[in-house]
């Protein structure tokens, strides 16, 4: 840029020290002035609510009444959590969802990204088509899927299953406690796949080309190249996707509240759904806060474990 490596102290001038300290004071003031709007809002809308939520979990209180009615009850809410059948089911469903949704999404996304990178024509169009679901609201697409997976034999997907694939007893999807969560998982993978494809593809494109040339010269097959070169070199990006997908998968709510509201029975109840249920159907705000804290603890544990694994694997 033609300005070289000038720094504050190398500038020539007689009252150098004085000028530097004025500049520093100006910078100090500017730094705080630029940050102040964000700082105030972040405190009001993020930090105070987090602290409040933490406190609410240890109290018993009806929010319609004044703050003086608030009663400290220690770990009572958390003790109740463990014997709550809704919560037990929610944790189990959340874990099932995450442990199937994450590996499938990332594996399929990785495969698609690798193919899109080198082996196709019309890359932009294909990428766009795969990404399309991700920009659509979960509420709208959940509405569509609810009808697509209509439980009777003449529902659109089921009619394909019976007529084309000769399935005699097509699943009852969202009305069956065995299939509801599977339907939710399929829809989740379909909705988010494009996001991970796009991220992984951007990272693959940024990999050094010469490694691939070397592979081609050494006669490595595309499959060998994929597992021995692409996957290891992409490890940081893959970990990023896995972590993000894991964190987001625990927050699943929109599609469940639209399609099943946690049912049939408790077969698709998840933690966020339970928070919503206890807070806004039963008006047990403090108990719902304890559920929300449980969600936080689970997400925190999972992201730390993933970070630990990443350190082990990628030095």
């Amino acid at each position, binding site marked *: 840029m033609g300005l070289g490596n000038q720094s504050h102290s190398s500038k020539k001038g007689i009252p150098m020290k004085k000028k530097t300290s004025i500049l520093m004071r100006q910078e100090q003031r500017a730094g705080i002035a630029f940050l102040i709007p964000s700082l105030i809002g972040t405190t009001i*809308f993020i930090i105070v609510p987090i602290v409040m939520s933490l406190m609410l979990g240890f109290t018993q209180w009806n929010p319609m009444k004044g703050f003086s009615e608030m009663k400290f009850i220690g770990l009572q809410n958390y003790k109740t959590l463990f014997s709550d059948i809704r919560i037990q089911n929610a944790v189990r469903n959340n874990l099932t969802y995450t442990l199937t949704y994450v590996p499938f999404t990332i594996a399929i996304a990785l495969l698609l990204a690798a193919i899109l990178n080198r082996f196709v024509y019309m890359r932009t169009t294909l990428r766009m088509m795969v990404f399309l679901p991700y920009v659509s609201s979960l509420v709208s697409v959940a509405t569509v899927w609810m009808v697509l997976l209509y439980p009777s034999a003449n529902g659109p997907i089921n009619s394909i299953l019976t007529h084309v694939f000769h399935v005699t007893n097509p699943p009852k999807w969202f009305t069956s406690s065995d299939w509801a969560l599977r339907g939710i998982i399929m829809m989740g993978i379909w909705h988010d796949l494009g996001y991970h494809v796009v991220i992984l593809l951007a990272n693959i494109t940024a990999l050094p080309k010469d490694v691939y040339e070397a592979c081609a010269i050494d006669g490595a097959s595309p499959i060998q190249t994929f597992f021995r070169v692409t996957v290891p070199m992409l490890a940081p990006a893959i970990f990023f996707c896995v972590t993000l997908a894991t964190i987001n998968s625990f927050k699943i709510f929109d599609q469940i509240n639209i399609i099943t509201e946690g049912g049939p029975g408790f077969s698709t109840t998840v933690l966020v759904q339970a928070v919503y249920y206890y807070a806004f159907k039963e008006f047990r705000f403090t108990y719902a806060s304890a559920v929300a804290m449980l969600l936080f603890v689970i997400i925190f544990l999972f992201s730390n474990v993933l970070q630990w694994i990443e350190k082990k694997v990628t030095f």
Partner: protein
Amino acid sequence: MKGYSGIMGKKQEILRIVMTVLLFCFALLCVFPFIWMISTSFKFEIDVMEFPIRIIPKNINTKNYVRVFTKSNFPRYYLNTIKVSLITVVGELMITTMAGYSFARLRFRGKNLLFTIYLATMMVPAQVMLLPKYIYFSKLHLTNTHLALILPGFFSVFGVLLMKQGFSQVPFELTEAAYIDGANHFTIFSRLILPLVKPSLMTALLLSFTWVWNDYMNPLIFISKENLITLTVGLQRFQEDSSTNYALIMSGATVSLIPILIVFVICQKFFIESFASSGIKG
């Protein structure tokens, strides 16, 4: 050598065509729900569950759309969603760029501590903040106002991080001279640096627009008045009111999806670059 590469080239060409066809089928599967939705929205109820599924309806029915636009509140939901999204995105961009600039390029006491606090809040899921926010919004009589959706949207920690990353990529040499010559910090920020981070601004804009437009949980919790709700909750109510009239429900879903799909298809390059850059580790 030449022949060898010729064979390889031909083999690769076949592989490429096969892969393209395979991937195209897969991509069709990805967009099938949308095609089916649009097609069904033009069908008569009796044709919805027909087999084989017709993509071009046998009898075209536009009455569904007439009903959506005249007998439902969709026009109102639209206005509300547009209002909330625009104000939120503009406010958020202003506040997060300033904060990002401060964290990236200015030195002041307590910066590292504040930044650590910002980062730490990212670990906490938004659902944890929801109930306390509801409690004090209702004490302040902010529930059932659009402010309840707009105000918290201004303060996105993710947006601050995104802008900070953008600003720190601008070389520092560029601004040193201007500082020493006594230009004030706001001039440098708005005239010199802001034009250089347009890609980051674009990313922040598209990510936050998509997020606010599609948001369901906040409107669900903070807004209950029919004339204030946004598209997502509006579609849910519309669907509940239409019970089993699936063709009608699909036209509601189409109407709720069309704007963002059109914006996406037109600006797909920007969208995809934006979402991709949110995930490149830097």
